[in-house]
């Protein structure tokens, strides 16, 4: 409770004319970022660190020169793809928080194709396309499990997708220590060169400036996916149905929209995006699976998706920003500052969701009824409550 003078009360009145899109969302995200940096600066200062210097160093290490920018884009690639997957599902009010597990399954499938499907002598484009395809399909099916559980048994996809993360991680471990292990170590054999996504540094022999630039073709894939699914969401009939489903499932059902089919497809596509992230990581960055392959991108991407207001067109900037935070924060000693920032950003974005949909108002004490809530404000409180319980994006 806020310490207000006797009789004064703070209520949140629902705001119906602000649709929570566009300008307000951008403003909200920027304000959340600002709040996060301010809070983190306070903590840093309290810990005896020069916050300005720390932020300058994070910026220098992640954006100031071309090699740093390249590292940032490498990190942004899986973040953007996973965030896109999450955003697709979230827009339809499907809480798929299994991006991490879907990423692992995608990577698993991509490596499986190389180890057991196609010989290493397969031409590079064919091998890469096969890996990409298998990663997307495997993760889509993995996410599809959540959809089936929900449609057949009414199991919340929030729980099932979360739990499938752990199953995916343990399953991956049993493969890297068991049948796919190289000499008993927790690693698969390194993939053949033909299964590596081309990196800018591959050109280093002809273009010396490319030395050490690790940004790979996966970034282009991420951009294409973001553009494509952005158009799907905003221009296609399927995207429109998803948005209706997210805005009001009862209305969607009443209007005779194929809700079940759309839920299935939304989760399939959401999973496929995360699977592509797994493919990019394994083919573009690490080139083999290990028991430590789990990177946490699937979880960080949830923040990226919310920061982008679940709008595909803001996902790339948000992912690049977070990629930079990860890269710049990594070297900053002691570690932990970027994690703090991430946490505060997430809380600020989610808290502002409430502010976006309701307007805080201070009620003056009314004559005669200093303690009893007035009828109007009680109604407002009730409305606000129902607003909260029903009104995610």
């Amino acid at each position, binding site marked *: 409770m806020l310490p207000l003078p006797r009789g004064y009360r703070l209520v949140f009145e629902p705001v119906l004319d602000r649709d929570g899109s566009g300008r307000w969302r951008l403003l909200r995200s920027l304000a959340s970022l600002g709040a996060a940096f301010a809070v983190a600066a306070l903590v840093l200062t309290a810990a005896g660190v020069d916050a300005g210097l720390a932020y300058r160093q994070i910026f220098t290490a992640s954006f100031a020169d071309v090699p740093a920018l390249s590292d940032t884009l490498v990190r942004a690639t899986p973040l953007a793809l996973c965030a896109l997957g999450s955003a697709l599902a979230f827009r339809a009010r499907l809480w798929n928080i299994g991006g991490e597990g879907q990423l692992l399954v995608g990577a698993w499938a991509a490596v499986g194709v190389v180890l057991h499907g196609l010989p290493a002598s397969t031409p590079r484009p064919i091998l890469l396309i096969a890996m990409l395809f298998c990663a997307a399909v495997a993760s889509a099916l993995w996410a599809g499990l959540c959809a089936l559980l929900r449609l057949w048994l009414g199991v919340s996809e929030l729980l099932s997708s*979360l739990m499938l993360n752990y199953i995916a991680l343990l399953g991956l471990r049993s493969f890297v220590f*068991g049948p796919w292990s190289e000499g*008993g170590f927790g690693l698969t054999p390194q993939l053949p060169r033909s299964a590596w996504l081309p990196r800018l540094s591959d050109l280093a022999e002809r273009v010396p400036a490319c030395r050490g630039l690790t940004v790979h073709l996966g970034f282009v894939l991420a951009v294409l996916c973001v553009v494509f699914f952005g158009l799907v969401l905003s221009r296609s009939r399927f995207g429109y149905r998803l948005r209706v489903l997210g805005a009001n499932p009862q209305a969607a059902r009443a209007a005779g929209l194929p809700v079940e089919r759309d839920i299935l497809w939304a989760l399939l596509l959401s999973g496929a995006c995360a699977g592509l992230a797994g493919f990019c990581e394994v083919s573009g960055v690490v080139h083999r699976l*290990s*028991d430590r392959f789990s*990177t946490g991108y699937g979880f960080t991407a*949830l923040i990226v998706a919310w920061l982008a207001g679940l709008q595909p067109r803001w996902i790339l900037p948000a992912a690049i920003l977070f990629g930079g935070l990860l890269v710049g924060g990594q070297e900053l000693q002691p570690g932990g500052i970027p994690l703090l920032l991430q*946490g505060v950003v997430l809380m600020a974005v989610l808290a502002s969701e409430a502010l976006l949909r309701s307007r805080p108002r201070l009620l003056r004490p009314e004559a005669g009824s200093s303690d009893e809530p007035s009828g109007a404000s009680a109604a407002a409180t009730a409305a606000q409550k129902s607003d*909260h319980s029903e009104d995610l994006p």
Partner: protein
Amino acid sequence: MPIPCSRPASLGLVGCWTVASAGGRILSLGCLLAALVSGAACKRQAARGTAVSPTASSTADPAAAGAGGRARSIPTAQPGLFNVAFVYVGPVGDGGWTYTHDLGRRALVQKVPGIHTAYVENVAEGADCEHVLRSLARKRFDLIVGTSFGYMDAMETVAAEFPERAFLHIAGWKQNGTNFGNAFGAMEDMKYLAGLIAGGRAQADGRLVVGYIAPFPIPEVVRLINATALGMKQTCPGCTMDVRWINAWVDPIREQEAAESLFAAGADVVVTGADTTLPLSVATQKGRYAIGYDSPTACDVAKERCLTSTYWRWEVVYTDVVQALRAGTWKPGAIYGDAQSGLVGLSGFSEGEVPNPNIPSAVVEQVRTILGELRAGRFSRFDVFAGPLRDQTGRTVLAAGQKPTQSDLLGLSGCSVCMSFLVEGIRGTLPRK
């Protein structure tokens, strides 16, 4: 007690349901996401040598550990000095693996003049480490040391990009003959001696089980388990060894649970191959015994019940490599430090130290004799694993008179007796291939 890293996600979940039941779906979703993200971050750190260990902090020297961290900024090379950068997988205050590497770094600075060191801690293996390595190379560090197995591929890649820098990798097998070498040590020698001590204690107590807390079923760990069991058989032919796989290098909760489970199953002594000192504290609670790992001071938390600790002294490798580099004589290859080099040790058995009085005196003499032979080079890891050697099914792995090769012990390609079996007397299984 601090919340261990592996648990916040589940705690967060509980919090979520509490909030959810109190209404406010957005808040509960926020809680859930925050719990997930923090859990994921923990997981990324929970590679080798990290996590919030309540007891580990007491063995680490906080002032000294903080001394490097006080810089609180991105490490930079200093012109005119020989610059060495260390990449750690955990925090320097973990009291285990990373802590011993940082002890090595600090000893290096004291022993070798004209040197500047910096470190980056909590660098996850796999995709995360490559840009850290590359960034350090760009900053003109002369030598870059990576102290975790999972940095291997990334170090190979970056070493090829920066032929003018030197790269030293700990616990891997790759090298390129020009600027990238690796180093590890014969910890199996010390584990063998620890096995002698554990077996001697179990024999004296008439409780014929020794427990082993095993991190991962990889050749390194299997080698150490086998060496311990072979030592145990020397002093306690009737003993069996019980193994618990925890699938983590560091996980305070699982280490504690594994120790409790082993004692409950009748173990008299628990030998830990993981990084925190919790199993030692459990031994104190249960009134039994344990043997620590990684750090020479691990036994400080349980002076009476911790029989000894098998430890690493990394400054041996670091000073050698740095001096060779500065003299221009470094030939990157595979360093494998044994007892002679001093890279591996057994606490209580160095000069001026007194062994734990709970070790039977006959065993103390036996350990001292073998340690003397090890240091003199008359006994080695190849003798530890010399035939006749049978695996747990009774199959003869090495006939009498045969000895394994180095690649057999490391389980590398080209091995004929690869480290993918458990020796006779061990109860436990390895994953099927």
